[in-house]
């Protein structure tokens, strides 16, 4: 009695799954098999019906997924937020910026080394949108300072640390990241940085073999009081990471 769910690296790195899965097993007697992949690959697995549901954070892509009829619907579960991480030295003085746009502006003006995931993940899509918001086009940036490392969250963080560079990360991944060395969160809190996670069951019409009912059962559980409370209370070194925001009916 098990179900396969594709999730993004950032979600898994947060460690939240280690709290939720045992509970699910207890309450629903359901084994959730997590496939930890990039956002794009997660959606791909859904499209080819190799998983029963996906949990990602990339609104545009998700809606496309629904439109194309690969998912039945999109259920928002919770959100956390992105943070700008960088060396304590903070050469571009991101600390004192008033908004994330301002922060990005400073980095760009300084041509301070910045690591971009460049893997079409939710995180990167967000990053690009932020650049766009200060009407700059990352495609035109010099590789001398704008490093497109095309890797998952963890790998990118490792690279950023190695390069002593700024990087946009989701809070969860950052807190669960052990190789922090002399890095810290330099900017956070701007609403523009909110990061919505959504649950999408794969469409049984496209892929009859998927365990849709189980997926729905799991969805119900995720939005349940208990689950939402678990999510809200999950914290690492005294900091809560996720804010549950599932609407009880949608």
């Amino acid at each position, binding site marked *: 009695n098990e179900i*396969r769910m594709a999730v993004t*690296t950032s979600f898994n*790195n947060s460690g939240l799954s280690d709290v939720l899965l045992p509970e699910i097993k207890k309450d629903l007697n359901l084994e959730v*098999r*997590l*496939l*930890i992949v990039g956002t794009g690959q997660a959606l791909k697995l859904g499209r*080819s*019906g*190799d998983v029963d549901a996906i949990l990602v954070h990339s609104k545009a892509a998700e809606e496309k997924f629904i439109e194309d009829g690969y998912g039945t619907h999109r259920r928002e579960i919770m959100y956390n937020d992105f943070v700008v991480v960088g060396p304590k030295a903070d050469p571009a003085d991101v600390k004192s910026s008033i908004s994330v746009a301002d922060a990005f502006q400073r980095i760009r003006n300084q041509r301070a080394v910045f690591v971009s995931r460049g893997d079409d993940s939710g995180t990167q899509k967000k990053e690009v949108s932020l650049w766009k918001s200060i009407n700059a086009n990352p495609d035109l940036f010099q590789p001398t300072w704008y490093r497109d490392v095309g890797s*998952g*969250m*963890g*790998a990118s*963080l*490792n690279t950023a640390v190695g390069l002593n560079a700024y990087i946009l990360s989701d809070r969860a991944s950052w807190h*669960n*990241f*052990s*190789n*922090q060395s002399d890095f810290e969160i330099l900017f956070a809190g701007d609403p523009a940085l909110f990061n919505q996670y959504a649950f999408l069951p794969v469409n049984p019409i496209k*892929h009859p*073999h998927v365990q849709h009912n189980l997926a729905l059962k799991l969805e119900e559980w995720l939005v349940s009081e208990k689950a939402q409370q678990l999510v809200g209370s999950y914290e690492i070194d005294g900091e809560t990471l996720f804010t549950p925001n599932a609407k009880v009916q949608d």
Partner: protein
Amino acid sequence: MSDILDGLWQAFQLILSLDPDLLEIIFLSLRVTLTAVLIASLIGMPLGAWLAVKRFRFRRLTIAVLNALMGLPPVVVGLVVYILLSRSGPFGVFGLLFTPTAMIIAQVIIITPLIASISHQAVRDLWAEYHDLLISLNTSKWQRMGVLILDSRRSLLTAALAGFGRAIGEVGAIMIVGGNIDHVTRVLTTAIALETGKGDFALALALGFILIAIAIIVNLAIHSVSKTERASTW
């Protein structure tokens, strides 16, 4: 730097603690890889021998291609196998994706060319020595291959071990077709990749050292098994 020592230390503790999850992972790694090596040897060694004894038009080309296939990028193999086993793929119905079987398939594809090439090189030398005798005894192609494989078993061991090495350390392919699912398809290498992603280098290294230790043990074991036989060949 400290990470490395840390890793060693953790590896040490992990082993002593006999952490069940760890044992599960180790066991799966060995099961998958050893099976793959076995299958790949059954395919690759005869193939190598065959290439040595049989003269045909495109032989050199075939050998070159075979050598080239040693360079099959694991990720690509992983992708192809994924696509074939995927629900929307031709063999989707068997539901093999994200199972150890899928991982074995991928590894077999990766190491067979390696084993075949090394075997071919080993057998070719012995064939040069036996050629006249075996022709004179009017042996069939199969009998020749049989004798050559049997009498060059020491060199073929290296082939199998090389295959084992490549497979036990491989991550790109099995990550894709296995999915690194906890308790189902998580093996040492995928676990290492995961921990690296979390930036937990110490743990990643610990697992790495354990993997290396296992590789060494397996090799020593095989060597001492083949020892008796080896002695007699001197």
